[in-house]
């Protein structure tokens, strides 16, 4: 029953100590008319054996397909050690490390995580994580408004090549605080943000420019030129980056002459399972000069009264439990377990393993695009290199083609019709190091069959 260990004798003795006859008497301050009349919507209890059977049936029903989906969440190999350690009770069932002396494990791990994320993004400081990549990007926009004291407009330039869900989350999160998000168009030939998209903002008050690298289409933005354009106009640069890609690509801290000002991204590729969208974690790094504008938990190393190294939450004067209505954010947790997994993952991969993973994902995606564009009726939507995703255009509606692939056990990518109708019948496809030549060949041959079964529009 409800994991409650009390014996009848315990209950009798405890009630005796309190001085009441029944447990019910402990609720005598609650007005009787407010008491629950029915919990009919909750079924009867299941035993662990029964719930195990139910969950196993439902999981089996969902199955595992050969997936070429990306779009912000990526399938990677996760070493067995990562979750074997992460789910240890000492990490899994610990609380936020307010009592530093009893939380040195979690605190030191976060300090190591901050070090890794700062190194990966080429920035000076990191926080202990945000909820996910999208919420981190939204918080970065709010942070930029606090940090850019030369701008009064709270205007953020957001390329349409930023993940469309990130654009929506930014709007939900920040619109009530008066931020204005202005979309920047992309080049229809190359799928990246063009210099001429910035021209209308020349001479205007703009707070920040967001740049996603690689962008939602998997294409590589001209980050140096975009960063320098912004900095020449006192506009802050928010980099939205994929952490796997940073094994290979230039880190935000080295973009342009001065580097980006804030870097954020989705941490899921670092050892966190796809799990239908979460729990993931967002990371955020910045320059030291902006550390007090950064939201979220931050761990620092200090000394104890005996002069020994120790770790503690620091700069808490930014946070809601101290500053209340004047806090940098209402956030009061990080995504601890996912951060634990990522820190172990990055330790196992190291610089070489991460670079190899990035390189393999890129190589597999090139092979995938080459194979699929050999199928009649399929071509690349954009000219130029991609990292580990690419947009393909089909000569017939993508929805039925994807459904035909699904019946062959393949998730063939994301239909972009709902997001970018101007692209026509377009698919976003992804391959990582988890895909073999045989997987790619299976997709190619299934796509040929699927296209034949769907009539051209």
């Amino acid at each position, binding site marked *: 029953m*409800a994991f409650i260990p009390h014996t009848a004798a315990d209950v009798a003795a405890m009630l005796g100590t309190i001085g009441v006859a029944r447990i019910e008497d402990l609720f005598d301050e609650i007005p009787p008319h407010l008491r629950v009349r029915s919990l009919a919507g909750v079924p009867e209890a299941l035993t662990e054996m029964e719930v195990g059977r139910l969950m196993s049936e439902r999981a089996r029903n969902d199955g595992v397909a050969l997936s070429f989906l990306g779009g912000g969440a990526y399938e990677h190999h996760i070493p067995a050690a990562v979750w074997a350690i992460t789910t240890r009770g000492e990490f899994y069932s610990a609380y936020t490390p307010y009592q530093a002396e009893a939380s040195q494990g979690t605190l030191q791990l976060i300090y190591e995580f901050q070090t890794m994320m700062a190194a990966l993004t080429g920035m000076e400081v990191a926080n202990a994580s945000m909820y996910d990549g999208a919420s981190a990007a939204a918080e970065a926009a709010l942070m930029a408004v606090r940090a850019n004291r030369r701008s009064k407009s709270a205007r953020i330039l957001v390329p349409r090549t930023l993940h469309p869900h990130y654009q929506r989350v930014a709007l939900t999160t920040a619109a009530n605080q008066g931020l204005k998000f202005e979309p920047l168009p992309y080049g229809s030939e190359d799928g990246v943000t063009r210099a001429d998209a910035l021209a209308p903002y020349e001479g205007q008050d703009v707070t920040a420019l967001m740049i996603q690298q690689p962008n939602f289409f998997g294409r590589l933005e001209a980050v140096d030129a975009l960063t320098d354009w912004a900095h020449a106009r006192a506009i802050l640069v928010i980099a939205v980056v994929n952490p796997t890609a940073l094994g290979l690509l230039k880190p935000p801290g080295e973009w342009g002459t001065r580097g980006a000002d804030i870097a954020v991204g989705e941490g899921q590729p670092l050892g966190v399972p796809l799990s239908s969208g979460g729990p993931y974690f967002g990371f955020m790094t910045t320059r030291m000069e902006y550390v007090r504008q950064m939201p979220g938990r931050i761990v620092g190393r200090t000394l104890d009264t005996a002069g020994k190294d120790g770790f503690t939450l620091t700069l808490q004067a930014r946070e809601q439990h101290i500053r209340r209505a004047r806090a940098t954010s209402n956030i009061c947790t990080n995504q601890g377990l996912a951060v634990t997994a990522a820190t172990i993952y990055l330790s196992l991969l190291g610089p070489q393993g991460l670079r190899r993973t990035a390189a393999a994902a890129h190589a597999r995606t090139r092979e995938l695009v080459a194979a699929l564009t050999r199928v009649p009726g399929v071509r690349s939507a954009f000219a130029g290199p991609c990292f580990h995703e690419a947009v393909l255009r089909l000569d017939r509606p993508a929805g039925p083609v994807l459904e035909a692939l699904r019946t062959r056990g393949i998730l063939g990518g994301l239909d972009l019709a709902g997001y970018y109708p101007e692209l026509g019948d377009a698919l976003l496809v992804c391959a990582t190091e988890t895909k073999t030549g045989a997987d790619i060949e299976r997709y190619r041959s299934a796509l040929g069959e699927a296209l034949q079964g769907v009539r051209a529009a």
Partner: protein
Amino acid sequence: MSVREPVIFEYSRAGRGAHDQWPAQVPAAALDDLPAELLRKRLPTLPEVGELETVRHFTRLSQLNFSIDTHFYPLGSCTMKYNPKACNQYAMLPEFLARHPLAPESQGQGLLACLYELQEMLKAVSGMDGVALSPMAGAQGEFAGVAMIRAYHRARGDLARNEIIVPEAAHGTNPATATMCGCVVREIPVDAEGDVDLEALEAVLGPQTAGIMLTNPSTLGVFERHIAEVARMVHDAGGLLYYDGANLNAILGMVRPGDMGFDVIHMNLHKTFSTPHGGGGPGAGAVGVGTRLLPFLPIPIVGKEGERYRWLTESDLPQSIGRLSAFMGNAGVLLRAYIYMRMLGREGMRQVGEYATLNANYLLKRLQDAGFDAAYPRRRASHEFIVTLKRQARELNVTAMDFAKRLLDYGFHAPTTYFPLLVPECLLIEPTETETRDTLDAFVAAMVQIQKEAQEEPARVTSAPHTMPVRRLDDVRAARQLDLTWKPTARP
């Protein structure tokens, strides 16, 4: 005293690594399409360590933590109850872990069934008419709730309502959330018995009132007895009532926020529904609403048509406050809450509220009998209560912080200290329903022993802890000489 566990980078040796975990090197030609100016010039400074060193290092770090699995954790307002192992095991079945968030609904009917049924169960226990699961923490649930209140007033053309009323004892997230939603915060006092001061409430209500945020039982560990009157007053003034679900464990299966008159609630699934705290997250802050706020729920929500489940998005809910996460919030956490609720069932829900309350009242009485002062001695405890050490601080110069640190030496995690701020030298103590009477008795014995030490040998308490991996830490140094990332050179 234990030796220091090195930072992982100190184990690093050039060329070492967990090679078996890496994919094969691809030929240089596979990268020849990437423009050189977009490439990284130097590899990132990540540790170069083998798999065994990695496993040992992180296992040792884990052993430096207190956790529910190892220690009693009576942390007020945090509901540190047992996290059943089954919830983790069955939420981590390979098919659930492998499912991509953008996979078609046909590839996730099992998952969607669980989430749909979770929505239904949360509606039943909260007394609400609709539930959305995507908020990824309590604070994000709060944000969604206040954003819905704003959207509701705005949709009615009632544009002047921008004030959120918050009792002074509220969690800091309440006022911080109101600010994030572009509202102005009005704090009101509570009376000497811990109830909302109705006169003060009357004085701040008006045509500018958007709503009030309340926790009930409150953060003072007592049930708000005037709740029906508060609800009537706020509704009469045109405002809505927000229920902060931090303390839902106290009344689970006994009273429902919807029946008390609340219009919107967030539920900390990592508290009441026992999903892991994970050293700070991930949590989940599902929101429930009454009929008035249904159109504004955040997306996505799970809908059911016949025997098929599907995501409801913008086209189904055009007035939604929008999306809060890139995908579906913390889906894996939601599965754990679902499994927990199925194992408890209807009867188990009620038992949670009953036994959480029994444990708290028993522990309070035992501590009072041992000479400790309750902050609200004439009130019943809810699932938690406040002990104030004002007397000890004045007479012995031993503070609540000192007691908290000394408890660590006795193998108990400290209660919440110095919250709520309006009770001086307070310990907010929440035992939860999953602890035995023996554990509660052992905690009382430790408190009695510390009190004795405070009288006879106060330095032993004021310099605690003595047995932990570190002694008290220099927080001022941490904030002034910022050391936030490890560097191979000497420390600042």
